């Protein structure tokens, strides 16, 4: 089961004691603020988690794989996520058992 906005809000209510309405609003606004910031061309740095960065890609020749027709791929701006050291370390430690099981 994946973590969703509803569960994050529930967690805020249970662990941080923020009432359910505020918790739901706060979770929604948190992700919306990250989106708006990126949309405005500003990167987002969340210490303890990672950085959302922007990359600009130049246009390049592309092709429709079905028809073989040449279609240029236009210049675009994309978002990439770089996990921070702390998150990478937490994931490595936390998933060590999963790795053991796979051996």
């Amino acid at each position, binding site marked *: 089961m994946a973590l969703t906005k509803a569960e994050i809000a529930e967690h805020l209510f249970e662990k941080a004691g923020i009432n359910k309405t505020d918790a739901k609003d706060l979770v929604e606004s948190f992700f919306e603020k990250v*989106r708006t910031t990126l949309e405005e061309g500003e990167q987002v740095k969340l210490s*303890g988690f990672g950085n959302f960065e922007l990359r600009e890609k130049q246009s390049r020749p592309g092709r429709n794989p079905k028809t073989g027709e040449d279609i240029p791929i236009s210049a675009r*701006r994309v978002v990439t996520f770089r996990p921070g050291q702390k998150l990478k370390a937490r994931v490595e430690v*936390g998933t060590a058992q999963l*790795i053991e099981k796979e051996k």
Partner: protein
Amino acid sequence: MNGQLLFYLGEKMTKSELIEALAEKYPNLPIKDVELGVKSIIDNMAETLAAGERIEIRGFGSFSLHYRAPRVGRNPKTGESVNLEAKYVPHFKPGKELRERVDFPQS
């Protein structure tokens, strides 16, 4: 000086700036709650990934783990080989809405 260009090239929003922006949006919420809230959201996400689970935020994107096979690496300073264990690394795939909003307007 082109302020717009400078802003575009290097500006980064930090966690504390994000907290300030949200606090302004919710003047009725104590700033302590906003601060605790943002920190809890981030911690909840990190904890989920550390437990080997996925995160799915509609319109934003999903976080999952990618497997990295064990390999023999090299210490760049000494040239000595080092055995690197298999591991999982966090991966983010932006959702459709985020991708479209971040991209340049398409004609």
